[in-house]
């Protein structure tokens, strides 16, 4: 229903627990997961969602990795409209995601980055669709019978019309924010700004909640508070993806994840899910299990100089 009005959120104090944030995600919701690839994905919130056994989710997004792979393994998904889910050339294809899609447990409705952008833009502009020129001639329209074509009344050329995508919930991890819900994202925002504007709800975990006056001094992308439904301060909330300047990508932990995932669903359940998701009562427990302060210090060491940064990413670097 792209033409519904979207709400705004004006509560001056939107702070909630991580679990309360997860509880706002309904079974069957269409969710947009912020960040991308190995960077600033709202991993703690996704783990909280899995702990609540939320099911039937549809994910829409651009280029993702461990976030969507984990949701696939945890049984939360029924439909994927991502443009990419994988671990790049570093580890390869996403094992849990592949299994879920190949078994039919999750329906594959792959999309492409710009198509997604245009569909989010339609929602942001309160329009039922956006026109675009690309995609025609590829196989994507056969995956998306909802697309339409039109003949342009100005030029006579054929255009593709893609319907608005208005996610029920955007899940975003930001470096900084305040209690009112203003967010500051540093570094590549990926599609987070589009998600925040297009979605009916925005749930944000925040590395560090600071006074509003402090936000004004920070560089980066500012997301105004009225888009944001609820926030929770969750340090290391993107782990094992990066959340610079706080911490780099935890490649050894990701390798551990990947090795477990490659061995099959049961092994992954036993060696990863039952330990780091269901085996951890909450985020504090998770942080203890991944190595507590030592891990945090290791991942923060990138700022010590190029050699330290490089060291984090060497093959065989220790977790």
């Amino acid at each position, binding site marked *: 229903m792209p033409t519904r009005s979207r709400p705004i959120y004006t509560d001056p104090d939107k702070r909630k627990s991580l679990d309360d944030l997860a509880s706002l995600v309904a079974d069957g919701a269409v969710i947009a997961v912020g960040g991308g*690839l190995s960077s600033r994905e709202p991993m703690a919130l996704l783990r909280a969602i899995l702990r609540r056994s939320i099911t039937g989710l549809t994910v829409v997004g651009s280029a993702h990795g461990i976030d969507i792979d984990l949701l696939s393994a945890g049984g939360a998904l029924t439909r994927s409209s991502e443009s990419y889910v994988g671990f790049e050339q570093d580890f390869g294809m996403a094992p849990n995601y*592949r299994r879920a899609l190949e078994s039919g447990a999750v329906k594959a409705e792959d999309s492409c980055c710009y198509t997604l952008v245009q569909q989010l833009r339609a929602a942001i502009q309160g329009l039922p669709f956006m026109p675009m020129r690309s995609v025609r001639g590829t196989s994507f329209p056969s995956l998306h019978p909802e697309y339409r074509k039109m003949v342009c009344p100005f030029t006579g050329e054929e255009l593709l019309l893609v319907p608005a995508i208005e996610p029920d919930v955007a899940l975003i991890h930001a470096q900084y924010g305040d209690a009112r819900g203003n967010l500051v994202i540093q570094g590549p925002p990926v599609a987070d700004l589009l998600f925040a504007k297009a979605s009916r709800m925005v749930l944000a975990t925040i590395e560090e909640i600071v006074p509003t006056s402090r936000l004004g001094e920070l560089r980066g992308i500012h997301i105004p508070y009225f888009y944001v439904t609820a926030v929770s301060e969750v340090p290391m909330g993107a782990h094992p993806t990066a959340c610079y300047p706080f911490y780099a990508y935890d490649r050894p932990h990701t390798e551990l994840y990947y090795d477990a995932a490659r061995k099959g669903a049961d092994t992954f359940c036993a060696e990863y899910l039952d330990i780091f998701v269901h085996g951890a009562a909450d985020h504090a427990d998770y942080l203890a299990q991944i190595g507590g302060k030592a891990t945090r210090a290791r991942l923060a060491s990138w700022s010590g100089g190029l050699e330290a940064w490089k060291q984090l990413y060497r093959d065989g670097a220790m977790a």
Partner: protein
Amino acid sequence: MEAALPRRGDGVTKTCSLGEMMITALSRTIEDGTLVFHGFGSPLVQLAMHVAKRTHAPRMVLVAGATYGIDPDPPFLAPTTNDWVMDRGASSALGIEELFDLAAAGRMGRMFLSGLQIDRWGNCNVTSLGFPELKMKLPGGGGGCNLSCDAAHLTLWTTAHRALEDAKGRRRFRLADDCDFITNLGHRTKDGKLRRDLGHRGNGPQWLVTELGLFDFDDDGHMRLNALYPDTSVEDVLMNTGFKPRLASQIEIIPPPERLVVEFIRRLDPLRVHEKEIRAEDMRRRFTIA
């Protein structure tokens, strides 16, 4: 280790690897003064763009995939693309929407794409083997579909041209007779429609670099073998291609990189991230450089 590499050509570096050959071949497809973009998971292309920027294309607008940083100068290649390592030194950064708008408005000169199936028209499949009945889910093409239509020119590449036998003795061709799914558009659609009749911005695939050779696309939009490596043959190419590629009237030998280029690549990629793209059996190949 990389710190031991000479910073200037002093004659120590006498050979290069297949990866370095491919990076060089990819970089030569870039014109100066154009806006060029690479996607994620493409270290060979990342390196090729940096090589071009520092050699024959100083005025290219280098847009880094995932970070969308403009003309970054990363201190080293990180194993993943959306790492803050990768946009150090960028003069500014684009948003995801702006990058794709640039292509849609005809401002992107070149994009690099690949596929787990690539057909004779340059169509690529990164979505699934088997369609609509899914046999193997592939990771997906990111924005490749859109950019394959919109970018002015495409360079394709693959490091898995050679069709190896799997456990059951079957050979699956990377350069396939037919793509199960067209993720990225080449010169003809599945039902034989010509790209040029679709009114897209882009002119489609212009080059394909594989570990066996260099291809262009003829006036029909058909793949054509253009050059070989010093250690590959036309027969290698024919045996490992799921269709019959056309052959240029004269097949050249891909020239090796200059020594300074090789040294630059090694400095920029001390973690040897790009070797993740190269198959084990191709790691042994060495080429004499100038």
